[in-house]
């Protein structure tokens, strides 16, 4: 998703400079705010695709800021950054109205992938539930639980189906391993070993086997992406 407008609300100037530089290099526009009140004022003016909010901020803490924005009817997606990475902190963050939660320290690729998903959610299909996805010649029907490629049915296990469903919903976007663990398995811990990779490669064996053009691509140092065409 090109040209997003992002607002980074973070009191650590070095971190926020690093983020806005990285966002600009990726072709996006990024504003920054150093404290909760400034951030709140900027966010209320609107026009942002995603807000990146640190949890601990001077003047107005991150969670209160999000709560106030939601009370004021500002529905801009919020990604919470926090040094507190525990399960209950995540729950608190999401309860306050955040849309995603990323514990510090994080990989920039992870942050970028999540922001793109949030921005896409805002921009696109928030209305009627989509019942099927299509990427190139790959089709997934959510109602009949059928997956076909070039008209040929691919039998999948339920978990494999959900994995492919998530990848296809975010076709063209990078999906990280932790995002997959969160949305397909609903766990938020660090799986340590390459469990997700093995699942993806199994799925890939079923989906891409026998076809010239792979659908499931590995994005080095970040995760996976479903996209039609391309050689990788």
């Amino acid at each position, binding site marked *: 998703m090109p040209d997003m407008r992002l607002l980074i609300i973070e009191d650590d100037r070095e971190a926020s400079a690093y983020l806005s530089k990285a966002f600009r290099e990726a072709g996006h526009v990024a504003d920054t705010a150093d404290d909760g009140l400034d951030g709140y004022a900027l966010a209320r003016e609107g026009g942002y695709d995603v807000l990146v909010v640190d949890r601990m901020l001077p003047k107005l803490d991150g969670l209160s800021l999000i709560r106030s924005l939601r009370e004021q009817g500002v529905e801009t997606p919020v990604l919470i950054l926090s040094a507190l990475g*525990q399960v209950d902190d995540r729950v608190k963050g999401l309860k306050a109205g955040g849309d995603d939660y990323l514990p510090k*320290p994080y990989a920039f690729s992870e942050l970028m992938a999540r922001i793109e998903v949030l921005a896409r959610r805002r921009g696109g299909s928030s209305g009627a539930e989509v019942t099927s996805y299509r990427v190139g010649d790959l089709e997934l029907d959510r109602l009949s639980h059928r997956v076909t490629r070039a008209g040929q049915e691919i039998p999948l296990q339920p978990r494999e189906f959900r994995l492919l469903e998530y990848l296809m919903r975010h076709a063209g976007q990078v999906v990280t391993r932790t995002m997959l663990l969160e949305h397909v398995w609903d766990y938020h811990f660090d799986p*340590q070993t390459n469990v997700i990779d093995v699942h993806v490669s199994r799925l890939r064996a079923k989906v891409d086997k026998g076809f010239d053009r792979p659908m499931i691509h590995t994005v080095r140092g970040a995760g996976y992406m479903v996209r039609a065409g391309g050689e990788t």
Partner: protein
Amino acid sequence: MSAPTLASAPAGQDGVLARLGALCRTTAFKLSLAYLLVFAAFAFFALGYVAWNARRVLDDQIVSTIEAEINGLSDQYASGGIRRLVGVVERRSREPGASLYLVTTPAGEHVVGNVEALPPGVLNEPGQTETAYGRGTDGDRLDHRAIVRIFTLPGGFRLLVGRDVEERDRLRAVIGRAFGWSLMLVVGLGFLGSWFIAQRVLKRVDHMTEITRGIMAGDLDGRLTLAGTGDELDRLASNLNAMLDRIGELMRGMREVSDNIAHDLKTPLTRLRNKADAALRAGSDPDSLRAALEANIEESDNLIRVFNALLMIARLEAGNAREGLAEFDAGAVAREVAELYEAVAEERGVGLRTEVEDGLVLHGSRELIGQAMANLIDNALKYGALKCGSDARDAGGGASVVCVTARREDGSVVLSVADRGEGIPEAERGRVLERFVRLETARSRPGFGLGLSLVNAVARLHQGSFSLDDNAPGLRATLRLPALRGPSA
């Protein structure tokens, strides 16, 4: 130069005053003082009561004596008239230790008797009164006191009969003196007693204070001395000593952990630094620099992982992750996590078998139990398949098995992961739960030695237990957690 010497004298005095103040502020002193007050008040009331009663008894005696005499004398008057009365009074007045008598004319003139003087008007009030009077030997001076009764005879003559109250007053004086002395004694002794007790207590408390101050200053091995009397101060001191022992134990534990942390974090940090250093010196080939940077990021990620795990364990052990716990099905978690690892297991040629009962409801954190199961299964796949894995490959695969079971057992939900690997020697089973402990056989494989510590902490957070047992052969890791409901749920 004289100023300091002058100043030193009041300072010394201040010291004494401060000491006195400290003494007076002690609980022992205040308590003794309160007791003293109570006792003094008690003594006051007791003695007062005795004195008052004694006086009343004496007064009663006097009054009844007078009554008897008057009755006797009026009998004499009735039988022999005024003449006889005068005769009897005259005789009785002269007897040693006699009562007081006076007979007057209706006009109040002295007829006979041993009372020479009375305050004016006394004779005009019939009945009993207490009055001053003068004795025959002393003339008109009214320097004695008596209780008298005045009786008007039928002919208008007046008869006064009385008893001197000097004896009674003397007794009163004696009691009063005793009163004063005993009060003084009570107060004096009580004051001295409380002083002594306060001094004794203060000395011991001062001693305790001195030692605790030393401990605060860094002498962590210092302990309070016991007087051996088994009193409350001794009990306090021995409790404080026990507390200090416990704190010392915890401190040693902490130091061990932080030493471990320092060591185990320093190693990868050094590696990180060396890699960066080596890459810098190797030259400016962009590809190798890029590779070095990527390796550095990977190493940093590992460090972050270790940090996160350590923080999580610390938090779980502090017990403040208790909020946000909810009901969930532990069986489902076991199944899901096993399924998550199934693909990896298959890739390594290990069979992952799951046996899960239904309705294993727990109150706790689904995430943490999931993570614990993930750690256990990950371990089983990593180490449990060490030997069997290669055997299995030789034999054509499938011989190595990891068993994940979830079942109910006496009100507990028992989650276990069993493998057929080398297991852990019995002596090492307790040790591997500690942070950063890795067995020799595991040293060569990736890992930080935190997985089982985390599982143990998760078990404790859920008020359950975690144990490692022999699976003959292999290892059986068991989480035993209190179940929420009966099998009907």
